[in-house]
């Protein structure tokens, strides 16, 4: 990904600081730092975007590094190299980044494209989610496709994706400590998908119509309609599989 504002000319760009309640029209900056509550009425391009509190960008945001502790909303697409969120991020339009770290919740009304995604919490995507490395502890809801070289999901809540495809796909249930006499809803996560296809597939607590892969392991809590595998197939006795075939 190319970012404008190389070091030489970024020295000429000014910083934008908003403390307390404030708003800005947007534009090009070196550093944007927000503490408090702010609205930016327009596109922002900067080398660093830092928000502690609430920020709403009504245009597009393009930044080298983005850090947010609190709430952030971008209305027309977000592009960054390194994005780290503790709290909530809402993006209307596509979100693309080299690395995306989340502790909290992300909503994208569009596609999510990353090299590396590491998330703890919830992920809602109305389009596709693509990445070389997608590691999530929590729950996710992807309306179209989840595509990744390495996909690791630890289920902490009800999750859904229409299609999952990639190199190595691992979906496991979370280890929960049972509380005596206490029912904790949502602690028991499950994945639901139309199809899951990959080279190495390991599933737990997953409901899918079709699973296809080279080496397939269907673990406990799975309900799979149809499995096709090439090399190796393992099935836990706690799994329900309608039919499996070697191709």
């Amino acid at each position, binding site marked *: 990904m190319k970012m404008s504002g190389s070091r030489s000319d970024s020295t000429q760009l000014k910083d934008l600081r908003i403390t307390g309640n404030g708003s800005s029209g947007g534009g090009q900056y070196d550093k944007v730092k927000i503490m408090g509550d702010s609205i930016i009425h327009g596109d922002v391009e900067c080398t660093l975007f830092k928000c502690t509190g609430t920020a709403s960008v009504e245009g597009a945001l393009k930044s080298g590094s983005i850090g947010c502790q609190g709430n952030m909303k971008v209305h027309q697409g977000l592009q960054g190299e390194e994005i780290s969120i503790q709290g909530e991020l809402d993006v209307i339009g596509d979100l693309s980044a080299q690395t995306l770290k989340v502790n909290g919740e992300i909503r994208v009304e569009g596609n999510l494209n990353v090299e590396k995604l590491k998330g703890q919490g919830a992920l809602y995507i109305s389009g596709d989610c*693509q990445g*070389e490395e997608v590691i999530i502890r929590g729950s996710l809801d992807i309306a179209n496709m989840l*595509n*990744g*070289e390495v996909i690791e999901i630890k289920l902490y809540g009800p999750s859904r994706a229409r299609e999952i*495809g*990639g*190199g*190595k796909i691992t979906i496991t249930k979370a280890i929960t400590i049972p509380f005596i006499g206490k029912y904790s809803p949502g602690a028991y996560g499950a994945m639901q998908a*139309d*199809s899951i*296809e*990959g*080279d190495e597939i390991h599933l737990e607590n997953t409901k899918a*119509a*079709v699973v*296809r*892969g*080279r080496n397939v392991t269907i673990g406990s809590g799975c309900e799979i*309609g*149809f499995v*096709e595998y090439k090399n190796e197939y393992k099935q836990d006795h706690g799994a329900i599989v309608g039919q499996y075939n070697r*191709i």
Partner: protein
Amino acid sequence: MDDDLISKKELLEITGISYGQLYRWKRKSLIPEDWFIRKSSYTGQETFFPRHKILARVDKIINMKDDLSLDELADVFSPNAGETSLRSIELIECNIVSSLTLDLYVEIQGQQDDFTFDNILCIYILEKLLKSGELSRDEGLMLVRTMEEHYGKLAGKNGELVLIRKMGVSVLFLTESADQMYFDKGVKWVIRLPLASSIEELKLKMNEREEE
């Protein structure tokens, strides 16, 4: 219609690639999104591809992936213009176009020092069609003028170049897709050229040049 489609499973069987590879290529945009055709089947949804396009593409990727990185390959297949511009002497020396075609182009457009990718594409298509004998010199003139004036509007899309003739009168045009076009009986389709394939060929040729 069904003959022209291939299921994902069949594709993997024929080509010997794995799901991981297929999804990797999709992520890197080596296989265009609109080639993934979802249809319902007895197991639910199945994905199909346009048979000839996907087989040719997979074959190319397999053959070239040792020499080029996936990102470079993505660039070759992208309908976007390349960034390079070349001087006329480089065009000839590297066998991208012949001096005959270049002279004709210069005759129409005037001499210039640098040729942008779009210019080169125009010359390349001109040469290809002149050589194949489908295009007359006068039509070549139409081609150059049309490309220079309108190609920019199609840039980044998968446009097509079409030449039709009726009673010896030829009409040449650029369109995003010529799929849904119907003419009266006297009209003959002479040329229907997807620009993306020419862009691909040209980029490969120019890549070879860089390696030398």
